[in-house]
């Protein structure tokens, strides 16, 4: 890994020289959506040849900022200046014409058209008759793309290329439309390591040509290898802005997660009771070597009955994918999952559920609730076959289960027949919990169980997690809320870029060590607090 001090010469802001001209300035951008202030007075400046990292966790406002910058959204307040002139983009096309190009995660080109046509779409070279000069177009396309490491027949349809090569075509197109600013939204998320190297080379080339780059990524290694400056957003606000070289990884992670450094003690603001009885015995869940292309690289973890295992890591580190792979919702390329010692067929949700695994998905609305059905039907959904005889639903059995869990989880609905879509987020979450508890699971995978629910419901859910663990369930807890993760878990497994990079147990389960492990990512934290924190930045 390239250490920040040993970076190659570049015209980025370096002390002494006259700084290059400011290309783009965002001042006090604010954008509100019903119920959320997605951007709150965010400013950002970009000089020619600067590569700026834009980072932040879920809901930090990165996507909103990019969308305002590229003309998808209009800001409620604040201004955008391009080369010192105030501008206002009504549409993405206007932003593009002004010289701001964006490369999104998913390639947005036309798969069935040839590579060359995609590259030149809308500005094809013409011959004297005004027809497309295919010969010239193909020659120029091949020439341009070889500079991006793409060596393919440019007459073939774009979709015949690999994802990485398609991304390069998108990038080449973005740059060739005379861009002054290129915004790259997680460009490496689907690239192979070799392709990543090529991409980095291209970005460095952009820097030398004086093009400014906004680079969004969750991979810290990449940021330190590539970027000059960094903007950290959190909850729609700017929390850090400065050169990246002087900033150690730990401070960067702390800024993203919104924690103070050295904050070691347990604050006790959550409802978790602390650690559970030291869980013993054979693991109830054992996942080994789970691998999903581009997402997970040999993740292993085990949970014993009565244990709450936290899964830590930054956004995009593979936490959700791990839970889904265990629950059969994501088919792993390789790896095994066993419940109470019995291996199960991976990639099958029904098989996982039969074995006793329940997943509370991260996206409650699109993956959890069935909004048009009642609270009652939603609770009974998974357990329906158990509440029926010969395919006929037993209303009495459903009633008794629904009543039990509505009381136990204190679900507030006007009556069991109310549509679940009309409930508050917290109550919807409890309905989903009830759906799974009605299945009598052995393992509960909770993916962000308290995100987006009010404080009261949050406390209740946390308390419930404790109770369930005490009843002997194995719980996997995923949470971006560090406090929740620390206080709720007996043990925390830390993921980074789809691989386990550390595990904290017992007294090691502190915010400080957790952040160091997330930031450092290599050595497991050592007991006694002497974690490899000092040199993380220089690794």
């Amino acid at each position, binding site marked *: 890994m390239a250490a920040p001090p040993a970076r190659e010469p570049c015209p980025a802001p370096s002390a002494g020289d006259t700084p290059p001209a400011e290309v783009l300035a965002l001042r006090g951008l604010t954008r509100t959506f019903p119920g959320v202030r997605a951007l709150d007075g965010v400013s950002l400046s970009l000089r020619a040849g600067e590569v700026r990292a834009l980072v932040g966790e879920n809901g930090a406002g990165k996507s909103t900022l990019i969308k305002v910058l590229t003309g998808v959204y209009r800001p409620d307040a604040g201004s955008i200046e391009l080369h010192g002139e105030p501008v206002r983009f009504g549409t993405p096309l206007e932003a593009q014409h002004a010289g701001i190009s964006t490369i999104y995660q998913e390639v947005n080109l036309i798969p069935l058209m040839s590579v060359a046509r995609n590259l030149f779409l809308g500005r094809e070279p013409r011959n004297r008759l005004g027809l497309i000069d295919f010969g010239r177009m193909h020659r120029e396309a091949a020439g341009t793309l070889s500079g991006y490491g793409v060596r393919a027949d440019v007459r073939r349809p774009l979709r015949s290329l690999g994802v990485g090569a398609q991304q390069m075509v998108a990038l080449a197109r973005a740059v060739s439309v005379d861009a002054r600013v290129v915004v790259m939204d997680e460009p490496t998320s689907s690239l192979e390591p070799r392709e990543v190297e090529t991409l980095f080379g291209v970005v460095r080339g952009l820097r030398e040509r004086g093009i400014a780059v906004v680079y969004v990524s969750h991979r810290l290694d990449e940021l330190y290898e590539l970027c000059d400056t960094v903007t950290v957003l959190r909850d729609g606000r700017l929390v850090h802005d400065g050169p990246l070289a002087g900033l150690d990884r730990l401070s960067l992670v702390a800024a993203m997660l919104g924690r103070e450094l050295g904050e070691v003690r347990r604050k006790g603001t959550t409802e978790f009771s602390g650690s559970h009885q030291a869980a013993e015995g054979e693991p109830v869940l054992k996942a080994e070597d789970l691998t999903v292309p581009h997402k997970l690289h040999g993740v292993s973890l085990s949970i014993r009955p009565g244990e709450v295992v936290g899964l830590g890591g930054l956004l995009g580190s593979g936490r959700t994918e791990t839970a889904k792979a265990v629950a059969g919702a994501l088919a792993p390329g390789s790896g095994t999952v066993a419940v109470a010692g019995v291996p199960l067929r991976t990639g099958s949700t029904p098989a996982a559920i039969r074995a006793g695994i329940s997943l509370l998905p991260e996206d409650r609305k699109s993956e959890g609730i*069935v909004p048009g059905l009642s609270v009652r039907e939603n609770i*009974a959904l998974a357990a329906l076959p158990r509440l*029926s005889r010969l395919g*006929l639903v037993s209303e009495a059995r459903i009633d008794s289960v629904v009543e039990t869990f509505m009381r136990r989880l204190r679900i507030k609905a006007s009556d069991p027949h109310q549509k679940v879509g009309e409930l508050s987020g917290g109550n919807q979450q409890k309905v989903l919990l009830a759906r799974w508890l009605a299945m009598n699971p052995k393992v509960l995978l909770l993916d962000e169980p308290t995100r987006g629910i009010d404080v009261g419901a949050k406390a209740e859910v946390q308390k419930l997690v404790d109770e369930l663990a005490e009843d002997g369930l194995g719980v996997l807890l995923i949470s971006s809320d560090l406090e929740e993760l620390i206080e709720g878990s007996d043990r925390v497994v830390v993921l980074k870029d789809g691989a386990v990079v550390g595990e904290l147990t017992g007294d090691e389960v502190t915010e400080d060590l957790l952040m160091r492990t997330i930031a450092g990512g290599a050595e497991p934290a050592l007991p006694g607090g002497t974690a490899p924190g000092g040199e993380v930045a220089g690794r």
Partner: protein
Amino acid sequence: MTGIAVRPAAPDRARIGHWLQRYGVYAGVGLLLVVNTALTPHFLSVENFRTQAVQVAPVLIVALGMALAIGTEGVDLSVGAVMALSASVTALYLGYGLPGALLVVALFAAAVGLANGALVALVGVQPIVATLALMVGGRGLAQVLLPQLEDIRNPAMASLGSGDLLGVPYLILIAAGLVLLVAFAVRRTTFGRQLLAIGDNRTAAQLAGLPVKRVLMVVYVCSALLAAVAGVLATARLQASDPTSLGNLMELSAITAVVVGGTPLSGGQVRIAGTVAGAVLIQLLTATLIKHDLPPSWTQMAQAAVIVLAVYAARGRGRR
């Protein structure tokens, strides 16, 4: 200023839309009954009601299966072709007796249903495309099996088409029985509940471990079997097997009945009573216009108006 003026009005309009979607079809049927009682001679007669009911029975039976498919956020365009196919097969196998012929019809229909279901559930083809393929192919097969119209002279078939029990035609009894059966399946069985959940939020249903593929397969098989029943009944009433034109545009009539009956195309709901009323509404509308000597083109335009109204009522209610 405008914000204040607009805000109270919006929920009102939404409520009217909601009411119209839920109960509009019954109001429409009621209105047509009143209008006809007042204006149409001999409308209030047992004979007339029997005629109307016998005419609506095949559409209604097909619409029941269509309602299931639409409830899963799908559609089944192959129902008309299945009717034609069952007409051909009936004519071909009637020599083995009615029960034997019906068995073969059921096998053919189940095969079409399985093909639809497999394309939708296993291959992942969009329902409209998958069933379009079977719509074209099914009718083709029907015509290959029986190239031209063939008269059917079979006492059992004749009795099925025009016989009655205590004055109620078999056609009506069978249709009523199937309505009750499907309504029961939707309301009381795990299959019915799972169908609605899959139609409302497929991802959630999948993650909750529901047998999504199996339910979809069963839905398309049911739809095909119901269409086959309608095809046999229509053939019995005609006393002829007509694979070329039997069931033509039936898929559209069935979709109309379901949509007019208040079942949203976005899935997650199945209204059986509404579907019955929807089929009856279209039938009464057609009969009324014909009785008053308006050309058939008027009927089509009136149907179009009803569909537009139904779509208007359902507007914006599909997705939240």
